[in-house]
């Protein structure tokens, strides 16, 4: 714990701190380009120079370890002059194109130039020009602007674990590029745009679309995977212009996945902006009243046993609650929120949560993956495991298809019987888990969305219990979801009621004619062929699979267009904020259900969002506490029966196409095409 003096202020900082961190502890702002808290220290921009007594030269504070009795000055004429000199050198080859640069207004170099820049250039020679690079459909490059801080290089190799960005040539000819100008292949590649302190790497989809200062900022959460990454939605008028990460150390740190960042153009395409009713086999535009009337007419004198409801992957808790209560009032028990068919129970809560928590991964010292590809299902969970592996070299084993997860994985094989072997201690990896202080397992939907899913769940519980994953202050049993709606819907018990059918039963019933009416709340990932002749009501945002099959379409609001609640895979309740209005006639989802309930004569007892939320908290206590995690008590769960000797599948085949918003996005389509070309090449002749 060195104690040093910064500008006359004495500070004590943790061991292994740098002078820069000590300066920050003393409340002094140090300009920097290459230094970043989450990346290794490069020390190559030299902007953070400070004066240290007894040192003849200024020192680079980011790379100098803090030591006892150092006397640091950050505001002397020497420091100012040194930084001015550094900045002048950085600007020698930097083009003066701020007026046409997308980074303008949020550029570190621009800001520091305001503080340390000359009012005119002394350079009379030609500036160097650098060839543009191709980094894929997400990252736009203007490499002439690059100041070679190497943040992007360090991010790719350290955080993303895909070391594909590097520095070629040397000195005056130094350039940043990907290997042979190939597209970046990491699911986290978009973060280099935020990291770039200048306008060298900017967002390609956002290129020349707007200026940073003309955007309306809304702090919200992401729903395109089940992490609930904290995001900021930047909008202009009625259009979402871009999505950026917000800092949340417990979930996404300061990163977001490429899907979260770039799928927003899907919000503008294929949208359902008015109700439709199928007449004579064709969907025809209708008014809300007509749509509701069509549903009421179909449900007249219905048998509740012949009605079913399914909830999709993106639905908010408010609308799930409204749908559940509407169905209850109608006497319908054929409900399911597990549209992928995962055999998860609605209780106890610990049976379907990521109990360790995402931040908790950093305490784990052995990880067992079961039927999951965290890289696709939750890219930032994978980044956390990698972070933990980098810090402690923990063993990670996998039961499931072999994966490239950016850290070494012991492939135990894709044999579900291994679960039993680990549970009874006969498999060698059981010892690794038992010897670990904080072992954890991650159970993916690939292991649960199968006929014997409940038995797999029980086996996984036995693995957890027999290897010491359940202990005081530690719960190493984790279910990794990839659908933002799932945990909230399970919290609300959106599962078959007494005598009700689950997803498989509903689909079979619809195919055989036993189920006559199916209500799909944003459920698009089921095989629509199986719905047979059923009357399908689709409430959602996009003209995707569900809408094409529907007999009545009720246009809902996407996650950027409503104030709503989601529960992430850890069980963390978070609120999304409305950034823009829904298109056309579309409405917030709970309000649609409330209006429909009135038409059906079973009016739901809430008239505003506060009342819905009060009801949420009353029904499921978890909803009373926002942004917090309550450890879920451990209890027995899982089904009896044998686990079939069928290998586990993975729930996500194409990372970029997991929900209607992504499928409507041209940016995601481009990424998907590149990724599949890369896969083909990898399995072909290319080394």
């Amino acid at each position, binding site marked *: 714990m060195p104690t040093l003096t910064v500008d006359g202020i004495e500070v004590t900082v943790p061991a292994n701190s740098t002078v820069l961190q000590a300066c920050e502890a003393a409340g002094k702002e140090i300009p920097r380009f290459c230094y970043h808290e989450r990346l290794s220290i490069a020390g190559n921009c030299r902007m953070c120079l400070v004066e240290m007594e007894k040192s003849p030269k200024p020192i680079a504070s980011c790379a100098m370890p803090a030591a006892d009795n150092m006397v640091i000055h950050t505001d002397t004429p020497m420091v100012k002059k040194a930084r001015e000199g550094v900045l002048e050198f950085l600007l020698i080859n930097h083009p003066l194109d701020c007026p046409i640069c997308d980074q303008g207004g949020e550029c570190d170099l621009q800001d520091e130039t305001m503080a340390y820049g000359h009012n005119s250039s002394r350079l009379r020679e030609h500036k160097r020009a*650098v*060839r543009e690079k191709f980094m894929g459909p997400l990252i736009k490059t203007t490499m002439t602007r690059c100041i070679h801080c190497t943040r992007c290089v360090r991010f790719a*190799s350290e955080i993303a674990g895909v*070391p*594909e*960005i*590097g*520095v*070629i*040539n*040397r000195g005056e*000819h130094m*350039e940043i*590029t*990907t*290997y*042979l100008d190939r597209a970046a292949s990491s699911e986290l590649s978009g973060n280099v745009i935020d990291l770039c302190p200048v306008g060298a790497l900017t967002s390609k989809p956002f290129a020349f679309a707007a200026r940073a200062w003309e955007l309306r900022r809304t702090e919200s959460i992401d729903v395109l995977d089940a992490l609930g990454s904290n995001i900021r939605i930047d909008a202009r008028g009625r259009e979402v212009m871009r999505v950026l990460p917000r800092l949340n150390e417990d979930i996404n740190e300061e990163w977001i996945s490429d899907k979260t960042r770039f799928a927003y153009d899907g919000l503008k395409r294929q949208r359902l902006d008015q109700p439709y009713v199928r007449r004579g086999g064709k969907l025809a535009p209708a008014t809300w009243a007509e749509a509701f009337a069509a549903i009421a007419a179909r449900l007249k004198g219905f048998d509740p046993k012949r009605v079913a409801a399914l909830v999709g992957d993106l639905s908010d808790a408010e609308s799930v609650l409204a749908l559940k209560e509407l169905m209850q009032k109608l006497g319908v028990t054929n409900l399911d929120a597990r549209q992928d068919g995962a055999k998860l129970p609605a209780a106890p809560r610990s049976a379907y949560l990521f109990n360790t928590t995402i931040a908790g991964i950093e305490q784990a010292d052995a990880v067992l993956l079961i039927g999951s590809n965290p890289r696709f299902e939750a890219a930032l969970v994978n980044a956390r495991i990698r972070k933990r592996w980098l810090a402690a070299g923990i063993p990670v084993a996998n039961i499931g298809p072999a994966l490239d997860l950016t850290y070494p994985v012991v492939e135990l094989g894709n044999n579900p019987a291994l679960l039993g072997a680990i549970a009874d201690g006969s498999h060698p990896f059981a010892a690794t888990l038992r010897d670990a202080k904080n072992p954890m397992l991650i159970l993916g939907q690939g292991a649960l969305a199968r006929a014997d899913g409940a038995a797999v769940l029980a086996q996984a519980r036995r693995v957890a219990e027999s290897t010491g994953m359940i202990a005081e202050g530690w719960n190493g049993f984790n279910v990794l979801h990839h659908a933002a709606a799932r945990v909230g819907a399970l919290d609300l018990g959106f599962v078959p009621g007494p005598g009700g059918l689950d997803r498989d039963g509903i689909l079979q019933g619809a195919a055989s004619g036993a189920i006559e009416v199916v209500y799909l709340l944003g459920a698009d990932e089921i095989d629509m062929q199986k719905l047979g002749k059923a009357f399908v009501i689709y409430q959602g945002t996009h003209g995707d699979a569900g809408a094409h099959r529907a007999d009545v379409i009720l246009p809902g609001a996407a996650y950027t267009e409503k104030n709503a609640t989601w529960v992430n895979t850890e069980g963390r309740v978070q609120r999304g904020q409305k950034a823009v209005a829904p298109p056309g006639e579309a409405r917030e989802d709970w309000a649609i259900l409330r209006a429909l309930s009135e038409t059906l004569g079973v009016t739901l007892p809430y008239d505003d969002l506060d009342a819905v939320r009060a009801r949420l908290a009353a029904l499921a206590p978890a909803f009373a506490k926002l942004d917090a995690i309550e450890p879920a008590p451990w209890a027995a769960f899982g089904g009896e029966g044998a686990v079939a000797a069928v290998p586990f599948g993975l729930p996500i085949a194409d990372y970029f196409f997991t929900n209607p918003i992504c499928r409507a996005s041209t940016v995601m389509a481009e990424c998907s095409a590149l990724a599949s070309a890369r896969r083909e090449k990898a399995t072909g002749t290319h*080394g």
Partner: protein
Amino acid sequence: MTEATGSSSSAEAPFAFTAENLAKAKTIVARYPEGRQRSAVLPLLDLAQRQCGGWLPEPALRYVGDFLKMPHMAVMEVATFYTMFNLKPVGRHFVQVCTTTPCWLRGSDEVVSACKKHLGIGMNETTADGEFTLTEVECLGACVNAPMVQINDDYYEDLDGESMVRLLDALKRGETPKTGPQVERQTSAPVGGPTTLKSSDSSGG
């Protein structure tokens, strides 16, 4: 150099060490402690460059990367950083003329223009028959014998325009010219024999 790698019909041909080079490579890698095998990237790239006739096609970079279990990009970084690695094909005789100050003061301009004129190529170009590539390099550490050129692995020193042409002609004829000083001089000793310690006996005593 803006393009990272050159294009050639052989650029996409797969690369692998010959049995002999593979044995050498294994010996080289074994010199480094466990976990530090990546340190062998420079000698291995050199080995690959020699096998490929003086340049590194892109498949060779990937091969070396895979050989040392290091990212291809990291191999690319090393290969582009060091000017001794050629990422485009070079002629059979790779003529590297030193033009740093001592050589320049001693007449490297004349050597350069003799090469250009005699070979009919400019800097960083290769003759049509693929025999010669001409390039300019920084100090090669033979300033005492300036001006000098390096051709493949050999130094030719104390040059002027005329001796440079003679040297090129000899190489064209397939001869192996004498390396080192091209004037009457033993290594870096004074021209025309010793000027001091004339009576000293090399056997001592």
